[in-house]
């Protein structure tokens, strides 16, 4: 980059008369032909790096008089093709400019990938990989509108009315495919200690068969992913991550494992395991039909993890709920995806079980004020200012990002992620400005209309002094300022009674 910048600067200030460049006359002569002038204005030597004959000739004029030096100065042959398309061009221009024989010039060093690529391959179909869950085609059969979420193809919703889909979860049973969640096995004598070092909260004291929420912070104490961690045995943990963060989190785990040399084995089982969440007040009744274990509230309490068979398939069932209703998240081998999905709907007919997509899920989670990493957080968000101080255990010896979070605490909180509602029912766009004293002081991170609470609800980052229930702040909507009111507890079922029912 530096070389290219200096080359450009040199060209801009160069006093080299074009006519003095060897070979220029011949170029000029070509202009007399019938070739349109447009194509003669610039003659590209290197298509990847946008280098022209003029660039190369100026470099030679300035003393970069070997092909290797000229390469470093102009970046010719340094692009993705590594000279496949520009070696011959550059050597010919060089030979012409220096009046040397082409054969004596040689070529620049090509670096991998260096396998010759045939023209038909270059002209072939583009490779744009898409991930699909093992239940993907059932979603299509059921009329899902599928959209991209990262590399995954996922159902947005199954009907044009996402609000109605969300309401059916509140009223009876909704079923959602969450196979895209990242899933990582952490196994070994140091597994608990390893997770203690990675997450701001503790996992070594988690009881076998129990689940705890965790948020991952980087060295700078910034939130970069979240998920649940279930302890399967004394030395085995099952970690879930966000759908788009799965690969990055696994890489993060492997990197730290290499640094710390702990006695831990890691395995990414994201694709091996399909996951389905059954949620709603009748979810237990449905689960009783398809499992071989006691799913009563006494035997299978909130945040329990249990092994069972679901419709005959071996499964790990997590009693958690992202959508605020009684919920069971079933994890089972991917090749059983369609079988389990079909069995759940067959058993759920009595309660009119319906599928729901990501858009209804977003409404439901917002009602509970559950954050979406990447949506309600950004690269600057830390757990303290994301209203998650309860998860940060600063009394732990150490964890990734601890020092940085301590600095945030020491300097004092400046902003806070809060819920808000719009008293006048107007809906700001996500990303809209929070305005205080005429100045931008925050932003709306999420906003939706909720049929359940009959309000426009959302989450926003506001200055810390506004982060109290009932405080009002201005939001810019279509250029005008509208009042929003801070809410710090979930809009729906703030006590979590339905989740624990």
């Amino acid at each position: 980059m530096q070389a290219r910048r200096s080359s450009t600067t040199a060209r801009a200030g160069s006093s080299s008369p074009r006519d003095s460049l060897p070979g220029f006359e011949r170029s000029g002569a070509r202009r007399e032909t019938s070739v349109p002038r447009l194509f003669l204005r610039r003659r590209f030597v290197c298509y990847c790096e946008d280098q022209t004959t003029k660039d190369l000739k100026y470099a030679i004029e300035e003393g970069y008089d070997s092909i290797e030096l000229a390469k470093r100065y102009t970046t010719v042959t340094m692009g993705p093709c590594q000279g496949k398309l520009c070696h011959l061009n550059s050597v010919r221009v060089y030979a012409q400019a220096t009046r040397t024989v082409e054969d004596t010039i040689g070529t620049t060093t090509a670096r991998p990938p260096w396998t010759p690529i045939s023209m038909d391959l270059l002209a072939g179909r583009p490779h744009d990989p898409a991930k699909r869950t093992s239940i993907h085609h059932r979603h299509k059969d059921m009329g899902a509108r599928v959209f991209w979420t990262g590399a995954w193809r996922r159902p947005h919703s199954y009907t044009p009315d996402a609000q109605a889909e969300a309401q059916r979860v509140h009223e009876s049973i909704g079923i959602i495919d969450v196979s895209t969640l990242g899933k990582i096995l952490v196994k070994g004598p140091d597994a608990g200690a390893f997770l203690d070092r990675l997450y701001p909260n503790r996992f070594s004291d988690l009881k076998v068969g129990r689940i705890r929420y965790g948020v991952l912070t980087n060295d700078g104490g910034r939130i970069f992913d979240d998920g649940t961690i279930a302890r399967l045995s004394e030395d085995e943990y099952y970690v879930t991550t966000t759908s788009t963060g799965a690969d990055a989190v696994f890489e993060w785990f492997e990197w730290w494992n290499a640094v710390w040399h702990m006695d831990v084995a890691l395995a990414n089982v994201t694709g091996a395991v399909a996951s389905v969440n059954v949620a709603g007040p009748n979810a237990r009744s449905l689960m009783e039909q398809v499992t071989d274990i006691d799913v009563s509230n006494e035997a299978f309490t909130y945040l329990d993890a249990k092994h069972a068979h679901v419709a005959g398939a071996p499964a790990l069932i997590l009693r958690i709920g992202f959508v605020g209703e009684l919920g069971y998240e079933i994890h089972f081998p991917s090749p059983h995806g369609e079988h389990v999905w079909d069995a759940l709907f067959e058993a759920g007919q009595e309660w009119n079980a319906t599928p729901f997509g990501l858009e209804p899920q977003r409404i439901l989670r917002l009602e509970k004020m559950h954050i979406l990493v990447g949506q309600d957080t950004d690269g600057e968000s830390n757990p303290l200012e994301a209203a998650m101080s309860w998860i940060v255990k600063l009394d732990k010896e150490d964890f990734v990002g601890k020092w940085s979070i301590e600095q945030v605490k020491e300097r004092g909180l400046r902003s806070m992620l809060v819920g808000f509602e719009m008293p006048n029912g107007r809906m700001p766009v996500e990303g809209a400005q929070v305005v205080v004293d005429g100045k931008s002081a925050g932003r709306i991170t999420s906003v939706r209309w909720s049929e359940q609470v009959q309000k426009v609800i959302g989450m926003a980052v506001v200055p810390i002094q506004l982060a109290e229930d009932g405080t009002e702040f201005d939001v810019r909507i279509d250029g005008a300022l509208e009042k929003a009111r801070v809410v710090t507890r979930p809009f729906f079922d703030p006590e979590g009674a339905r989740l624990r029912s």
Partner: protein
Amino acid sequence: MTALDFLSPDRAKADLGFSPVLRSSMERRQREAGATFEERGGWLVPVSIPGEADRLARAGVVDLSHLGKIEVRGEGQPPDDSEAVVWYQMRPDRAIVLCPYRDCFVLRSSLARRFELALDQTGGLGVMAIVGPQATSVMRRLTELHEFPASGLLAQVTAHVLERGGGFWVVFPQEYGHYLWEVAVDAAEQFGGGPVGVDAVSGRER
């Protein structure tokens, strides 16, 4: 069940005496091609596809996802030939083992005794074979890998490629199955090839 049994589809048979049907991530594409399916050992296997003989004479794409797949970690005694497996050593301390699905349960137990970890990846990995006289040409359209076995990008997906009986076996994350089947068949069709059923190829993969 033990802690990691929920990863193993064959636990259903071991625990309950029956197994719900297992489906490959490439099944829909094969159905669209008119494949005939049979249930074999719990898996729904595409045994034949109309017009496969002509395609196989050029370049055939075969779904072998019904194989058992085990990821082995640590150092230990690899299986001998009598255990009828394909062993791919990815790193000194990590290998992928492919075996007939009916043998997966026993082999996994045996490997678990010999190695630090033997993880059932049957559900996590897809396997596709590219066979026939034009198999190499098809591979050239999909990947820059040229010495096998190798791991690297195939149609922009990280995969392991093994050379088997004049053709290639591609082992990849199953969630890319639908996509990879589409691009592999598309590449094979350029040479007059295309999708082929499992019975059209011989060997232990059947």
